[in-house]
């Protein structure tokens, strides 16, 4: 269960970035998770809810996109995407290869932010009542 450490790191990274921005509200954090990272989507979502409490990200949504394994096949001299995580061989020529180029990463791809068009305006349906700058 290292998902909590991972989402804490997500919260830290996005909060650091936010502190360099004009006041905005984060609605969604898009996370790309390689299938070899060992991080489970369910646990990440659950951990995210806990880790965002009383942070600028409270109420935002974590979207997890699973990324496949990409191997380098020396025989084909090409990057090959494979299905699943149990057979490390080139999908083209069948040669076994352990040279993993993608699939371990955990990366914050992007954030969806909402900018206050009218400062102080209460947004209908917003998860939090108070705008970012009042925290």
């Amino acid at each position, binding site marked *: *269960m*290292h998902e909590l*450490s*991972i989402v804490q*790191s*997500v919260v830290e*990274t*996005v909060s650091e*970035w936010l502190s360099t921005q004009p006041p905005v*509200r984060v*609605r969604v954090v*898009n*996370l790309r998770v390689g299938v*070899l*990272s*060992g*991080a489970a989507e369910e646990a990440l979502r659950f951990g995210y809810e806990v880790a965002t409490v009383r942070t600028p990200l409270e109420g935002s949504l974590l979207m997890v996109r699973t990324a496949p394994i990409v191997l380098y096949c020396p025989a084909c001299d090409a990057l090959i995407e494979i299905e699943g*995580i*149990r*057979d*490390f*061989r080139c999908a083209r020529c069948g040669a*076994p*290869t*352990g040279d*993993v180029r993608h699939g*371990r*990463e*955990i*990366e*914050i*791809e*992007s*954030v*969806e*932010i*909402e*900018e*206050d*068009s*009218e400062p102080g*305006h209460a*947004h209908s349906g917003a998860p939090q009542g108070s705008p970012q700058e009042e925290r």
Partner: protein
Amino acid sequence: MSPATRIVELRKGVLRKNDELAAGLRRRFADAGVLVLNLVSSPGTGKTALLERTLRELREQGYSPAALVGDLETDNDARRLAASQAPVRQINTHGICHLEAEMIGRHLEGWNLAGFTHLFIENVGNLVCPSSYDLGEEIRAALLSVTEGEDKPLKYPSIYNSADVAVITKIDLAAACEFDDVLARRNLAAIRPEIPVFELSAKTGAGFSAWVEFLIAASKRTSA
């Protein structure tokens, strides 16, 4: 008026802090000429037993190994390993299921790394989480005991795929467990093609000479 939403690309690796610390440790280990191994496995595979004998045999052959042992609680493993006379330190993670580079750095204080030939890091017994955390090691060794079943690598591909060598432990129990050695090796190769595999018993010493020879040869390359 509805608020404007937009998407901002960040492209930030979540584990980059750990990766940066690990890269710093790796440089430090290389400068000191010490070979660092990260031992990973499930609880009960025999990491500590493997280390006990490894530390003893390396010392008998004139090498200077040291060890850091990670556990959630207790210093039982460090006390077990201290009998080998090698320098040993316990890292208690207090609930965290894996070691991180920062913990390693913190526990190296006061040690003269250049005085060691080998530094073994016994990770917390866990087949999932340690795979994501680089500790600055040169060799990641994933253990698999004959009592666990041949399909462990298929069940936990992340960790076995991230390993540089595999060690099959407790081979003195292989017959009693009807352990299928060929199948285990085939499963390891499916997950990590061409991974070197050692088979040994820390209890009887079977297979140990190949393992120790490998450790000696690797440490000579590191210190060269």
